[in-house]
């Protein structure tokens, strides 16, 4: 059994990264996630990793590109405006197939916005975010425990598929403290024959580039990437369900709001409303198949997506419910977290329709 601690989400992420064998962290401070770089800076003397506060998020992501391409296990963390700046590098890393782990501890936007929690970056995270046809793997932790666990998973998936993996969390999960069991350290044994480590006599030179100037070559590269994305969709979907077996109403929610929704399910059930919660753990790949299955169930009356946004994940729910059931939405914006009662009130108003 691992060590039991009371930690902030951001600190849990940082500690987990050390335990997962992170070799380099590049980042630029931004609220509400600066605890990560601060924690790593404090712990640095005890460990062997590279820690560098970059001059900008743009520089940080390109240091990731360099260090990840050179075979390192690399991490950066940021919050919304910073992740927008990083999109250039994410697009390059995806095409060049350089693995690396990102965390976006989302705050309210658009623009400079607020430093309070939000889920307004969902579209940016799951639809690519930068230029070109691509996806990155997106994990959405809903607890301090998962902030730690998902770091291990993100590194593993990033290396396995040679792709950036994103932990999409929010300011509240980053800042709150919970009891967690820290995962035991896992030695990292790199096996990256494609990395730029110096051309030895027994192999051809390794070139990491996203430049394919001939259209035919660029299309071949894209077909290769799309094949990989389909493979990830087939193998890496993760989700969680709570009391959906006999539910008449399916609440869909991820991250912090899925916790609030779970409480709403319990309170609702005490009042005789058959509520269930569907929580994606990966939002790309999205649990399309399971949503479609639930949509085909006769006893389910409707779906309702609860988010801290103007309605983003709800579009993916609608796509996969595919008109078989009504799909409602309730969201708060600007850093406001909906309460369990607000969720119940909305559900009840739809039940009366």
């Amino acid at each position, binding site marked *: 059994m691992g060590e039991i601690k009371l930690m902030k989400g951001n600190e849990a992420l940082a500690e987990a990264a050390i335990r997962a064998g992170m070799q380099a962290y590049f980042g630029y401070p931004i609220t509400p996630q600066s605890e990560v770089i601060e924690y790593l800076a404090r712990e640095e003397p005890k460990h062997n990793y590279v820690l560098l506060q970059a001059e900008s998020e743009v520089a940080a992501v390109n240091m990731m590109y360099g260090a990840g391409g050179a075979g390192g296990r690399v991490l950066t963390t940021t919050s919304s405006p910073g992740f927008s700046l990083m999109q250039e590098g994410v697009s390059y890393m995806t095409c060049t197939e350089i693995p690396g782990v990102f965390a976006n501890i989302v705050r309210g936007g658009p623009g400079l916005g607020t430093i309070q929690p939000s889920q307004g970056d969902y579209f940016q995270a799951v639809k690519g975010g930068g230029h070109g046809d691509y996806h990155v793997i997106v994990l959405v932790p809903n607890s301090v425990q998962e902030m730690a666990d998902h770091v291990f998973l993100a590194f593993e998936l990033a290396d396995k598929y040679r792709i950036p993996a994103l932990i999409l969390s929010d300011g*509240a999960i980053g800042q709150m403290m919970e009891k967690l069991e820290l995962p035991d350290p896992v030695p990292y044994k790199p096996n990256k024959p494609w990395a730029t480590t110096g051309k030895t006599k027994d192999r051809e030179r390794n070139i990491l580039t996203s430049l394919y100037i001939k259209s035919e070559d660029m299309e071949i590269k894209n077909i290769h990437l799309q094949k990989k994305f389909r493979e990830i969709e087939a193998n890496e979907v993760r989700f969680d369900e709570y009391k959906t077996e006999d539910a008449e109403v399916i609440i869909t929610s991820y991250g912090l709001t899925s916790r609030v929704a779970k409480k709403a399910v319990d309170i609702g059930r005490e009042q005789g409303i058959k509520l269930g919660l569907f929580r994606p753990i990966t939002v790309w790949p999205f649990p399309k198949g399971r949503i479609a299955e639930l949509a085909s169930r006769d006893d389910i009356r409707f779906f309702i997506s609860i988010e801290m946004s103007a309605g983003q994940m709800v579009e993916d729910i609608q796509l996969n419910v595919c008109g078989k059931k009504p799909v409602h939405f309730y969201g708060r914006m600007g850093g406001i977290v909906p309460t369990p009662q607000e969720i119940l009130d909305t559900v009840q108003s739809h039940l009366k329709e």
Partner: protein
Amino acid sequence: MLQEMIFAGFGGQGVLSMGSILAYAAMKEGKDVTWYPSYGPEMRGGTANCTVNISDQPISSPVVNEYDLSIVLNLPSLKKFEPKTKKGGILIWENTIIKQKPERDDIRIYGIPAVEKASNELKNVKVMNMIMLGALVTLNQIVKIDSLMKALEDTLPERYHHLLPLNQKALELGMSLVS
């Protein structure tokens, strides 16, 4: 049993640390805990608060509708959280800073002169949050007082350990005010 609590006051009054010491103590007793802060610029000067949930069972939401116990150290917090205290719940308010009395008659209300006691009897106003915390655990028995002392010892940097006896006195003073 699940206890949902709010700690609220001005930044600098120690509301966040009060909550985290309690959360730590509960965690050490094997309970599940969440500590959910307001964060940001209001940490300096404005109002600050944290929600602390403690339970024998896994806790679903760190965000709640109403509180079993509210502990308020300034007037804006009293105004905000008195109405959000559950019927039959507990409201603890600091009654030397807050001049306006709570109004509800369906909750248990305890006025604690923590600032006055900390300044006059303990000669250190900073430990007033420990007086409030002493009152809290006496009223709802959520953790043992020894666990709180252990929590202080574990979480305070060693350079402040000479202040541990003072904090213990403050906790005991808080207990005596409500027992």
